[in-house]
C-alpha cells in the first residue's frame, strides 16, 4: 500500500462547479498535510497547509483533514478555467500521484 494515495483523474467539470479532490494516507503518525497545485510544465506550488484534523479555508479553497479515517480533501468552490491543473496532496516529503482537473467554460 502506498503511503499516500490519490485518484489520478482526470476530473472534468463545468465552470462554477464545486470540486472535491481526495487523498488517503496510511500512517496515523502523519500530522500535517499540504495541497500543491501544478500547472503544465511548471513546478508544484503550495496551495494549502493544514495541521492535524479540521478545516482550513482560503478564499475559494477549503482543505479538510479527517485523521480518524486518514482522509484529506480539497474543495474548490466556484471553479474557474484557471483552476485547471494537477493537484497533489502531500505529507512530509511524500506526495500523492496527483489528480488532473480540467474546468471547462
Amino acid at each position, binding site marked *: 500500500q502506498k503511503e499516500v494515495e490519490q485518484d*489520478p483523474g482526470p476530473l472534468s467539470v463545468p465552470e462554477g462547479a464545486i470540486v472535491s479532490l481526495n487523498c488517503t494516507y496510511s500512517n496515523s503518525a502523519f*500530522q*500535517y498535510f*499540504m495541497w*500543491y497545485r*501544478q500547472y503544465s*510544465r*511548471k*513546478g*508544484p*506550488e*503550495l496551495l494549502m*497547509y493544514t*495541521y492535524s484534523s479540521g478545516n482550513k479555508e482560503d478564499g475559494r479553497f477549503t482543505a479538510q483533514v479527517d485523521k480518524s479515517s486518514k482522509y484529506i480533501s480539497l474543495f474548490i468552490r466556484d471553479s474557474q478555467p484557471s483552476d485547471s491543473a*494537477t493537484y*497533489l496532496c502531500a505529507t*512530509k*516529503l*511524500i*506526495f500523492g*500521484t*496527483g489528480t*488532473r482537473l480540467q474546468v471547462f467554460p
Partner: protein
Amino acid sequence: DTAVSQTPKYLVTQMGNDKSIKCEQNLGHDTMYWYKQDSKKFLKIMFSYNNKELIINETVPNRFSPKSPDKAHLNLHINSLELGDSAVYFCASSQGGQGQGGTQYFGPGTRLLVL
C-alpha cells in the same frame, strides 16, 4: 526575483553521458531537496540537504550524486545516464526539514531526455 531557480531547463543527451543540474534558492532556507517526477507525474524525493549536510538519501542509484557547496545551492550530478533517467527533476527548498513541517518551494524543473 525567482525564489528557486534551476539550470538548465531542458537537457537532451545520449546514454552513457555525465550531466549536472544546478539549483539555487534566494529564500534564505536551510533545507534543499531534489525530486524526480516521472512520466505519470509521480513526484518522488531523492535527496535532502540541511545546512549543507545530507539528511535524506532515498533509494537512488549511486550514479546520482548531490553536492551542496553552500546553503543556497544544491547541484545534482548524474553519471552514465540511462534511458530510465528521463524525467523532470525538481529542486525545492524549505525552512526546516520534514520534521518541522516546513512547506516547500519548488523550482521550475529540468526536463531531462536521455536518447
